[in-house]
Structures are given as structure tokens and as C-alpha cells.
């Protein structure tokens, strides 16, 4: 690998562009976690009793759990008592329209390249923006309502559709599922809620942008997506956080339910602050995402581009319960500097003729550590189940690491499971070839990495694909030298 090309080094040292801090007053709960804090959150959110009890049960269960240690990640112990579990931008009352939203907050989204007004209108994207833990504005609510679609903050869903929340909440990721999911269930403060009624094809992409702003705050959002029979929806999620020297915890839960013939496509571009080039600061991203193909012929597809976070620990999974249901996982995870990613998926084949596809692309640069961890499980009744898995790793420089841990458990003899894996390196000869054609070093790296990730990035909706491609280039800062 070339060590001395000045333009390449300059490019690789580029800064995290979303790292600004916004001077917005926050309504903060005291640091620490106990039952009183949970009650405070519940009161602040004006929640029904069932939800408070659900939270408390999750909390009591969490107390009996220990942090998982099986992932290939290392970090100093997290002090769960040093975190604010509730941080909300201060405001007198809930905004009725975008005009009432704090202009400073709207400026933050603009800096992030998400002007709610124009972008929403031009792109036809309905945006729900979650700032720290509170959903700020949801655009296009009315237009969606005409189709019977509910797209709102989780808090609004609790107020306006408590029966749907109660029916589906925790049915895919039970509150005691794992340490971080239990923590989320106890303290989650907001998130997004989507319900697509029977037979409705959502007329636009739904989108949520998450941002952590307040100091020492955690973000614990919870997203619940329900696609009723024959419904279809494509949902996008984007994330950023300011640059801070302290590590911040993000422990989200996403649950998706697809009933008969429903299709849900969930795309993520995760650009949480990754820490600086010496590994200081950055988001600890411990996320539980799971979808259940509950109905026959349903389909759930996860696409993720993970470029941010100091630590990424997430395994978007699909429970293939309905016969002939389909699960997909397309992932690009990039680690640079001291970033660590342990990510992958679980495909649990329960129904007959269920099919799953896994395509994972890991890119490691600097001293980054990139691990694919995946489980393909075929249960005894999953007659005719099929899985295809492809795991590719790309190394940039000599100090990074890539690891693959595929777990395969098959209990039905008719199942077909395929696994392919490759590891390659961005070669000095590849860079030279591109540069000899007049392409700058930085564009050459971006082209080569983009080529490697193409199969996954092309799964994203067009608008996100462009953003993801750029992010992959920018995120390689400091990977050489």
C-alpha cells in the first residue's frame, strides 16, 4: 500500500462532517437508572399503565442480565449510571406544524442535508426526525393518512393508537431478549411507528433521521413497523451524532411484522460519530433489529450501510415463520481508525419453502476490526428451506482485521444452505491503474471501494445510494499513513 501520496493521505485524514454540536436547550432527566427514572419517563410521555408495567418488567429482568461478551469487540466498561436516560429539546408544547419547530433544530437538519420542507416535498419522502430521544416533526402525515397509513412518532402512537402498540410491541423482540433490548424496553423514549393497512402499497418512501445531540445522553429509540396483509412499504433510516470526546451509548430496537403477502424493505445509512483517528470518543451502537415474516409469502429485506460508530453490534434478523416467506440481508460495514464492527444477521427458517439471502461486505482500514457474525438456522418443519450466504472482506492497509463467523444449524434434510466467502485487499497496483488514467487517489479509493460494495448499495433507494456511496469515500479518512 502506498504510504506517501500526499493527496491520498490528505483525503484519508478528512473530518467527520456531521460532528457539529447544536446549542439547543435540553430538558434532561438526572443521570442514572432506577425505577423512579422509568416512572419519570413514563409520566413525561403520558403513557398508559400497561406500558409503564411493561417497562418496569423489562427493567427488573435487565437487572438480572449481564452484558454479552461473545462479540469480537473491546471497550472499557459502560457505566449505566452515568447516562441521562431522558433528553428532549426544550419546548413549551408539542409543535402543530413545522413552523412551530425550533428554528435552530431545523437548521441542524439542514446542516445534515435534510431540510425538512424542501427535501420532503421534492423527494416525496416522509420524514420523522428523532432528535436525542424525542420525535420532532413528521412530515406528510396527512397525505399518508388518506391511505390509512399511520406514520408517526412512537409517542404519538402510544397516545393515539394504544391498541396497535399493545398488540404488537415486543412480539418480535421480547423485552427480555438480550441485555441491550431489555435496557431499551425499560427506558426507550421515542422512535417511529408505522402501520400499513391491508392491501395498501405505501405511495412514498418513509424515512427517519436520528441524531444524538445532548452530552452524556444515550439514545434509546424504538421503531415498530407493521405491514398488514398484502401491504408494502420501504423505510429508510439515517443517523448522525456530534463529535464528542466521551463515548455515547445508542441502544435501539426495531421490530417489523409482515403479515400474509406483505413486503417490508428497511434501509439504514448509519453514520454515527466514529470517534477520532486515535480512537477517542464515538458512539457505542448496540442495536437489536428483527423482523418476523409472520404471514405466508411475506418478505422482509434489510439493507444497511454502516460507516459510523466506534462500536457497531447489530444483527438485523428475520424470523421466517410464514410458508414461502423470504428474508434478505444486504450489508456494507466499514471500519477505519479504531472502529470495531461485529455485525451480521440471523435467518431463522421456521416455515416451509422459506428462502433467505445474505450478502455481507466488510471493509477494514486503519486499525479497524470488522467481523461478520451470522446464523442460518433451519428448524425441523422448514421443508425445502434455502439459504445463500456471501461474505466478502476488503482490507486497506496492513493493520486492520477482518473475521467471519458463520453459524449454520440445519435440522431438516431437505434444506439447502450455501456459504461463500472471500478476502481481498485494495492493491497499490489497483490504485496506480486508476491514477494512471487521470483519476485522483481519493477518487480511486472511492471507486474501488464502491465497486466492492456495489452489490449492496444498489439495493438502496436511489437517493440513499448516492449518499451511501459518498459516505463510504469520506469514511476512509486516515486509513493510510
Amino acid at each position: 500500500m502506498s504510504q506517501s501520496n500526499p493527496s491520498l493521505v490528505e483525503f484519508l485524514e478528512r473530518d467527520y462532517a456531521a460532528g457539529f454540536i447544536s446549542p439547543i436547550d435540553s430538558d434532561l432527566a438526572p443521570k442514572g437508572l432506577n425505577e423512579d427514572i422509568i416512572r419519570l419517563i413514563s409520566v413525561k410521555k403520558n403513557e398508559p399503565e400497561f406500558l409503564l408495567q411493561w417497562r418496569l418488567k423489562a427493567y427488573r429482568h435487565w437487572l438480572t442480565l449481564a452484558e454479552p461478551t461473545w462479540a469480537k469487540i473491546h471497550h472499557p466498561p459502560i457505566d449505566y449510571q452515568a447516562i441521562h436516560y431522558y433528553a428532549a429539546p426544550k419546548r413549551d408544547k408539542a409543535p402543530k406544524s413545522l413552523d412551530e419547530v425550533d428554528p435552530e433544530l431545523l437548521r441542524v437538519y439542514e446542516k445534515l442535508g435534510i431540510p425538512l420542507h424542501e427535501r420532503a416535498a421534492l423527494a416525496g419522502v416522509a420524514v420523522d426526525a428523532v432528535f436525542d430521544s424525542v420525535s420532532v416533526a413528521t412530515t406528510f402525515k396527512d397525505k399518508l393518512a388518506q391511505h390509512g397509513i399511520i406514520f408517526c412518532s412512537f409517542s404519538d402512537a402510544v397516545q393515539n393508537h394504544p391498541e396497535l402498540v399493545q398488540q404488537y410491541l415486543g412480539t418480535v423482540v421480547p423485552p427480555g431478549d438480550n441485555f441491550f433490548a431489555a435496557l431499551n424496553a425499560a427506558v426507550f423514549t421515542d422512535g417511529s411507528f408505522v402501520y400499513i393497512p391491508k392491501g395498501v402499497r405505501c405511495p412514498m418512501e418513509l424515512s427517519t433521521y436520528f441524531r444524538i445531540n445532548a452530552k452524556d445522553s444515550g439514545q434509546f429509540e424504538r421503531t415498530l413497523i407493521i405491514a398488514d396483509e398484502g401491504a408494502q412499504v420501504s423505510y429508510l433510516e439515517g443517523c448522525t451524532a456530534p463529535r464528542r470526546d466521551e463515548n455515547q451509548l445508542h441502544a435501539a430496537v426495531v421490530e417489523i411484522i409482515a403479515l400474509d403477502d406483505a413486503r417490508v424493505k428497511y434501509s439504514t445509512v448509519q453514520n454515527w460519530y466514529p470517534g477520532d483517528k486515535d480512537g477517542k470518543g464515538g458512539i457505542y451502537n448496540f442495536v437489536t433489529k428483527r423482523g418476523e415474516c409472520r404471514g405466508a409469502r411475506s418478505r422482509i429485506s434489510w439493507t444497511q450501510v454502516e460507516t459510523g460508530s466506534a462500536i457497531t453490534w447489530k444483527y438485523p434478523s428475520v424470523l421466517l415463520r410464514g410458508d414461502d416467506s423470504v428474508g434478505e440481508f444486504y450489508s456494507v460495514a466499514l471500519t477505519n481508525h479504531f472502529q470495531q464492527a461485529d455485525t451480521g444477521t440471523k435467518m431463522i427458517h421456521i416455515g416451509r419453502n422459506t428462502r433467505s439471502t445474505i450478502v455481507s461486505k466488510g471493509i477494514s482500514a486503519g486499525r479497524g476490526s470488522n467481523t461478520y457474525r451470522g446464523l442460518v438456522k433451519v428448524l425441523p418443519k422448514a421443508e425445502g428451506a434455502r439459504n445463500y450466504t456471501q461474505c466478502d472482506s476488503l482490507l486497506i492497509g496492513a493493520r486492520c482485521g477482518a473475521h467471519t463467523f458463520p453459524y449454520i444449524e440445519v435440522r431438516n434434510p431437505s434444506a439447502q444452505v450455501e456459504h461463500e466467502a472471500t478476502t481481498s485487499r485494495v492493491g497499490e497496483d489497483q490504485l496506480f491503474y486508476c491514477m494512471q488514467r487521470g483519476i485522483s487517489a481519493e477518487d480511486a479509493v472511492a471507486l474501488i471501494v464502491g465497486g466492492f460494495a456495489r452489490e449492496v448499495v444498489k439495493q438502496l433507494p436511489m437517493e440513499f445510494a448516492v449518499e451511501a456511496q459518498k459516505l463510504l469515500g469520506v469514511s476512509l479518512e486516515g486509513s493510510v499513513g
Partner: protein
Amino acid sequence: MQMPARLQPQATQPLLQIRGLRVEIDGKRVLDGIDLDIAPGEVVAIMGPNGSGKTTLAQVLAGRELYRVTGGTVRFDGQDLLALPPQERALAGLFLAFQYPVEIPGLSNVYLLKAALNAQRKHRGLPELDAMEFLQQVKALMRELGMDEKFLQRGVNEGFSGGEKKRNDMLQMALLQPRLAILDETDSGLDVDALKAVAQAVNAMRSPERALVLITHYERLLEVIVPDRMHVLWQGRIAASGGAELARRIEREGYAWLQPGAALASAQEV
């Protein structure tokens, strides 16, 4: 052999001027004082046995960092070529067709070609081409080269045969229209048909403004692309210079006559 008048070397400022070029790799001297002028419009062949420094010369001119220049100067179109990073040499109009074009899996040919062409256009102050204009241009060139359009969507040289890789480099050359193209063993590993196609592409590039340098082992390339001048590299130096007939002598006698002392006399003899 009589050359058409338009291909006669012109008495203009050399496009490439190499003086006393010395190069090492891993502490070992590979080029030991090269002097060479190439004028616009010239087609120059460089021959020499394995290890004589032909590929090193090509790579050093293109800016490969693996090699260390320990002495000498190279001026390209009046500029200090050695001071420029590889991409700026390319933008100034220097093109290298590689002996072994590298594979870049997943990166489709069409992206690389478009990025390269638009980088050139930007450098020349021309607007970037949009996708439609670009495709029209590149598809026309592919037809001339007898390349299937499917090449555009394939990964760069990914799983290409040797001949396909060389043809792909010719496509890039035709698209980028360089001022100086160095073809490093472009004929090696080609069957007769592929050699014909490559020769046709190279001959189509001949122009009074452009210089071509053919690096080769074999005389057969020089039968289909007739050079104006020839140089023979021997142990990191130019040991003999002459016309196309020099190639035939090498074909007959090999390189033995280039032993120190014999070089000058032989060169004058031919």
C-alpha cells in the same frame, strides 16, 4: 522500408526528453543513464531482452512509486515530469497500456471509463459528459475495436482473458486520446486475431500530434505497427538505435551482438 512523408519525424521540440535517467528498485540499479528524445508524431519501438529495464522505464515515466529515481531528468511537453504525481502525468497526456492490466472486482468498466474521461475533460476545461453522451462515444469506439458492449458492465478486467485485458486498455487509450502512449508488451499473450485488432487500434492512433512508444520482445508486432525508430535496451542503457530493420537483426541474431564494445559498431552497421 520507405515511410510515408507524414510519418517522418518532425524537427520540432521533443514531446518527451529523457536525460541521464538512473533508477533503482530495492537498491538494485535497473536503468543506468537513459538518454532519449521522442518527437510528436513519432512511433518508437523499444526492444531488449528480459530484465533490460523496458518495463521499469515505462513504469517510471508513468510515476510508479515502487521505483527510486536516483539521477537524471525527464521533461514532458516542457514540464518536469518526475515532479508530477501519476494522475497529473495522465492528465498531461501520458498513457500507459500495462503489461499486466490489473483486475478491480466489482468496479464496472463503465464507471472507470467515465471517471477517467471526465477527469481528463475537467482538466482540459471541458464540461463533463452526461451518461448518454458518454455511452454514445464509448460504444462507437467499442464497435471499432470489435468489443462486445457487455464489457461495460463487467468488473474492470475481472475474469478477462489476456487478449480482452489488452483490448480494454486499447479502448481506454482510444477514449482518452493521450499525447504520448506507452504500450508495454501489449502484444504478449495475444492470438493472431487479437494482435490484429490491437494493431489496428494503435495504427488508428497515429497522428502528427501524438507519439507512441511500443515496448516489445517480438518482431511480429513491428510488422503490423511499423515504427519510425527503434532503440534496444541492454543492461539499463540504450545500446543501439536505428530503423525498423534493427528488429529483423534481433529476430535473426538475438541480442548477443550487443555485448559491450560491439554495440556502437553494430548500430552503425545496420
